[in-house]
């Protein structure tokens, strides 16, 4: 299991557009992925769940990946939160 923390770098936070991209990315993994903000944890394959966390710019979240491709999933997730998110 891999857990990584990220600060949300886009001003609007996890709004619909980046959240959609994230769900699409995650669907390519075999690992189970989830997203944690504060004491709430949700599965990452559901856009509804991600949006319901109402994640704002500057907030910190954790991503938890568990499964056979968790290492490569972590690399892709890392690229999403550190690079792509700023442009979405």
């Amino acid at each position, binding site marked *: 299991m891999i857990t990584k923390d990220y600060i949300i770098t*886009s*001003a609007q*936070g996890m709004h*619909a557009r980046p959240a*959609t991209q994230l769900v699409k990315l995650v669907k390519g993994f075999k690992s189970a992925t989830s997203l944690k903000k504060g004491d709430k944890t949700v*599965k990452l394959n559901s856009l509804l769940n991600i949006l*319901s966390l109402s994640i704002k710019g*500057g907030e910190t979240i954790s991503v938890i990946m568990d499964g056979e491709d968790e290492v490569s999933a972590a690399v892709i997730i890392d690229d999403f939160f550190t690079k792509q998110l*700023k442009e979405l």
Partner: protein
Amino acid sequence: MKGIGVSPGIAIGRAFVIKKNAPATNGIVLKNQVEIVAEIERFDISVVNALAEIDAIKNNSQLMLNDDDIAILETQVELINDPQIREDVVAKIEEEKKTANDAMIEVTAGIVALFESMDDEYMRARSADFQDIGNRILKYINRTGDTNNRSFEPDTIVIADDLTPSDTITLDLNLVTGFATQAGSRTSHAAIIAKSKGLPAVVACGDELMTINHNDFIILDGLSGSVYVNPGEDIISRYSAKSASFRQQAEVLKMVKDKPAITADGKQVTLLANISNADDLAMVHDNGGEGVGLFRTEMLFMDRDTFPDEDEQFEFYKKAVLKAKGKPIVIRTIDIGGDKHLSYFNLPTELNPFLGYRAIRISLDQEGLFIVQLKAILRASAFGSVSIMFPMISNVKEIREAKFILNKAKNELLEAGVAFNNDVKVGIMVEIPSAAVTADILAKEVDFFSIGTNDLCQYTLAVDRMNEKITHLYDPFNPGVLRLILNVIEQGRAHNIHVGMCGEMASDPLATLLLLGMGLEEFSMSAVSIPAIKNIIINNSEATAKQVCQQVMAMDSSENVIAYLKEITQ
């Protein structure tokens, strides 16, 4: 009547009123396992059909969808496919023996209520998206067919209680010239789509909107949010003219928006915007601004009872820095005094407030307040490309003192282990004649200058900007003012520091070539002025600008300067 203007532009035409029937539950209780399986299957098939419908919209070349539209449709695909929504619907069918129709209505209502209760405007606006996808699936569950096929006449203005994202995306722009809705918000997808398509739109008009009848004559102003129903001749002619000039401006914007501001002979200029809060940044990006040349911080201090503390200031700056999306942002420290007062901060009544206790003079005097602001700005610098600018500098001592306090602020943050950008650039406003004359001295102390032409003009010409009797003397084209500006630019360049301008002159089309010829490389102005100034830069050369500057600097009066500049800009 009035709503919120969410997509600028004027629409003039006839009303087409759309009223929707809310989906109703049927209250049927499923009797056995066979019915339960059938209802789940009915839901799953409806999902497949709803997805096919979105695919059809995506592939409809007649709709001329842009990237924003596609992104919204892709979000809808994910929501229709959402495993959590399916899980909730299936649970209601299996455990509560509800029909697919009732389960879907209840799940949708639950999600809509959840998002409507959120403390974030953007998230509240998402409830409309969930209602939209709920309705879309329900349409197939009940096989009510496609209600989107409406026949519009040319110059139609759609009047609706609410428009879903899919309603908006499928509007035929050859026929529909604008829309107004009873509900909605600035961040609803209908508003975002309207803006990206350049379709004038007003939302949140309230119940009064639905008193409009089919075929009523309507004018709507997508900037101010005004909606006129069967207006008189004077309003019609006023708005016809407004509409024409807006279209012309929009044309210019479209032509230049994504082009860099480079002259015909290859001189690159940076066009930035002046802002007062984070929300202004949307306009900056829309108008092709390359960043923020002046972020006034006064708004944060006004209309309240006490000074904002460091955390509150930090949040205010950070929000803007994040919204700048990595583009440069120059934050000016507080510029109160003069004509700007704070109810909770006792400023003495002065005979000459513009020559009095204001801006950096207050900051240096009240070090406790100043250091709080500097620490808040420094903390925000960790989130983007931030520079700090001091206003009203008249001598080198003030710069050194301000920098000394800035270093103190940095040390306090270092000791506390708080992140900030240690290399944050420091600059000054050049708006006092002594600063302009001694630009060579001051240039050694800072990373950049920003010329504030409004105060520079007032101080150089000894003209009170607020005194209506002498407004004719307030004249930035006075050769005295022009010489000061030229000196600042030349000295800045000689000392290899960056020189920009954030006063009104930067947005005056009459002054653009002159300033370019003087060697100014950065213009900062209100966002809406950027396209017009960029248009001038793109269509001229630096060589011409230099000639213009030479001519102007040899002239003896502002009348001659203005007459000449008018002649060449036509």
